[in-house]
């Protein structure tokens, strides 16, 4: 009697064949019988594919192999599923955003633009974003780097542990809460002391403060990680030469970790530039070009929100173009940061 040394296997083309059959059957069900549209067809073909694959494998290869195949197709499917929104967002923003991509958009503001005007631009919003993010960087980056130096180089005992823990917790603070905090603290308590009529002042600077609150934990975390990667031999070599600790940190440790720190800062900037909620609460949403951050300003993200909630028929075009501008800025920063990280000598 012959004994089979290898288990029976489905032919290689079987999954592809089952997939094609599933799509055809789903198409017939949805469009032939009029059950539904494209979304349902996608759902149906996925379900049919999994069921078909399970049955076929179970008959040929057995139940364990069948479960394995189903799990594999779920795992591949999950990845493909995640690509749909990413591709869809990028394609949509590109197609809709190019309609108003002209000099007028980047050269003018929304000052005196009424619902009937087709033009109007985002110059003021771009100025606002640049200034607010720059101020936030000036506040958050030195503070964040020093904080990380404390955690890694100086901190011992409970205080350092508590700070490390709350930095992690702080990364999860909702951006709207940061906005409310600056509203309750800076706008409602501090600014009335300095304004001429004692009324609270909404300003781009307040938005910068909120963005700084959001950036701070991100900067601390990424710097902290980078400082931990700096080899201890470098520090010890420096100490052996009689160099004090603070000079070792500023001249040896921080420069070594610099590319990684810059990456973290760029990612934090990318995130801050895309924040809408805090800016909505405290920036004042000026429609005119305003270089002074201590008075009402707008920002690109806020501009998208304003235009998206505007009833003018020209507003959506402006919103999409601003969204395109924003996404280009943010993705460029992100990609550049990741490439920089790859070139860094310190890597895990």
């Amino acid at each position, binding site marked *: 009697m012959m004994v089979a040394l290898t288990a029976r296997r489905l032919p290689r083309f079987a999954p592809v064949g089952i997939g094609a059959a599933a799509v055809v059957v789903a198409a017939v069900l949805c469009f032939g019988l009029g059950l539904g549209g494209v979304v349902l067809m996608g759902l149906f073909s996925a379900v049919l594919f999994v069921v078909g694959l399970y049955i076929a494998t179970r008959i040929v290869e057995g139940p364990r192999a069948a479960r394995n195949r189903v799990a594999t197709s779920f795992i591949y499917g999950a990845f493909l599923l995640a690509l749909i929104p*990413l591709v869809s967002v990028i394609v949509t923003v590109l197609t809709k955003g190019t309609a108003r991509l002209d000099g007028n958009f980047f050269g003018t503001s929304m000052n005196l633009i009424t619902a009937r005007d087709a033009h109007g631009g985002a110059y003021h919003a771009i100025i606002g974003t640049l200034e607010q993010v720059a101020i936030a960087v000036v506040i958050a980056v030195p503070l*964040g780097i020093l904080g990380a130096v404390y955690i890694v*180089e100086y901190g011992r005992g409970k205080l350092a542990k508590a700070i490390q*823990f709350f930095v992690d917790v702080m990364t999860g603070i909702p951006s709207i809460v940061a906005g409310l905090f600056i509203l309750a603290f800076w706008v409602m308590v501090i600014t009335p002391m300095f304004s001429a009529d004692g009324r609270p002042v909404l300003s781009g600077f307040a938005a910068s403060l909120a963005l700084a609150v959001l950036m701070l934990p991100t900067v601390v975390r990424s710097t902290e990680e980078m400082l931990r990667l700096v080899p201890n031999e470098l520090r010890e070599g420096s100490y052996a030469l009689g160099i004090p600790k603070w000079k070792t940190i500023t001249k040896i440790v921080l420069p070594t970790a610099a590319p990684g720190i810059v990456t973290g800062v760029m990612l934090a900037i990318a995130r801050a530039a895309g924040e*809408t909620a805090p800016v909505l*609460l405290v920036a004042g949403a000026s429609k005119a070009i305003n270089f002074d951050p201590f008075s009402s300003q707008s920002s690109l993200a806020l501009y998208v929100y304003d235009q998206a909630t505007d009833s003018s028929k020209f507003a959506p075009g402006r919103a999409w173009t601003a969204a395109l501008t924003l996404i280009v800025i943010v993705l460029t920063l*992100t990609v550049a940061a990741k490439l920089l990280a790859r070139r860094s000598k310190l890597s895990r």
Partner: protein
Amino acid sequence: MLPSTTTEPVAGELLPRRRRFGAETIFRWLTTGAGVTVLVIIVAIATFLIVKAIPALNANKENFLTYEGWFPNDASPKFGIASLAFGTVLSATIALLLAVPVALGIALFLSHYAPRRVATALGFVIDLLAAVPSIVFGLWGREYLVGPVAELSTWLNQNLGWLPIFGGDGPFGKSVLLGSVVLAIMVLPIITSLSREVFMQTPTANEEAAIALGATKWEMIRTSVLPYGRPGIIAAVLLGLGRALGETIALAMTLGAGFLISFNLIEVGGNSIAANIANGFGEAGEIGRGALIASGLVLFTITLIVNMTARIIVYRRREFR
């Protein structure tokens, strides 16, 4: 270098004494101050939100915790957190139900299925998803996702309408389902990247032992990778939950902004604390702002608890290793 002030140490002489207010001490205090700032900010957030919420809470004519409506700008202000808190938790829960299986699938794909080199590039693609600003997701969800979701809602209503969550008779569109789908896309990257990291750390010995015993790939994952990564998965899900609870603009643009406690997922409606702050801020008066700050305080407390729980799990795991 200032040659006049530095004295060359001579053999046999004591090292120069550490000065009390030298650069070292100043630098150490500077870094300590920066570290303490983080604690100060967290305490300050709680303090200022409480201080500014109290006047509005005193003026409130209804119970803040149980009242469903939101009329803080009336002559006799009435507002309560009940429907908003319910909506926040509901949309975040649905978002997690949708996102977690997909995120774990992607994480497994990147850690155990895709070839190493491809996995790095594909992981980068998922990171790009995390970089897209929430306002863009909101705009996209409101203009484009609303069609497919409405189509799905109609089908669910016709075929599964006997379930209360899919009941009602329309209109379908800016519903909890739409908001949750957008939210799910937004929390996907964070859950993916954290659980992927945990999956990669599974000891190779465990995996190889399972394979050697004849396990299929899926059985190997079920018996070695998933049990090993369980605390990490829980922490990742909690961090995703924290993110979902606090998401503002995307929900402000995709939810229907109602003030009802309802489990219906597909009818126009749904609201969240954060979305209500963004929507209601423009027309809020003195009491209105206080009321929104009070709701923000509730949100801050909820997210703080969720995040702290997640971090404690992560820390325990780190010590365990």
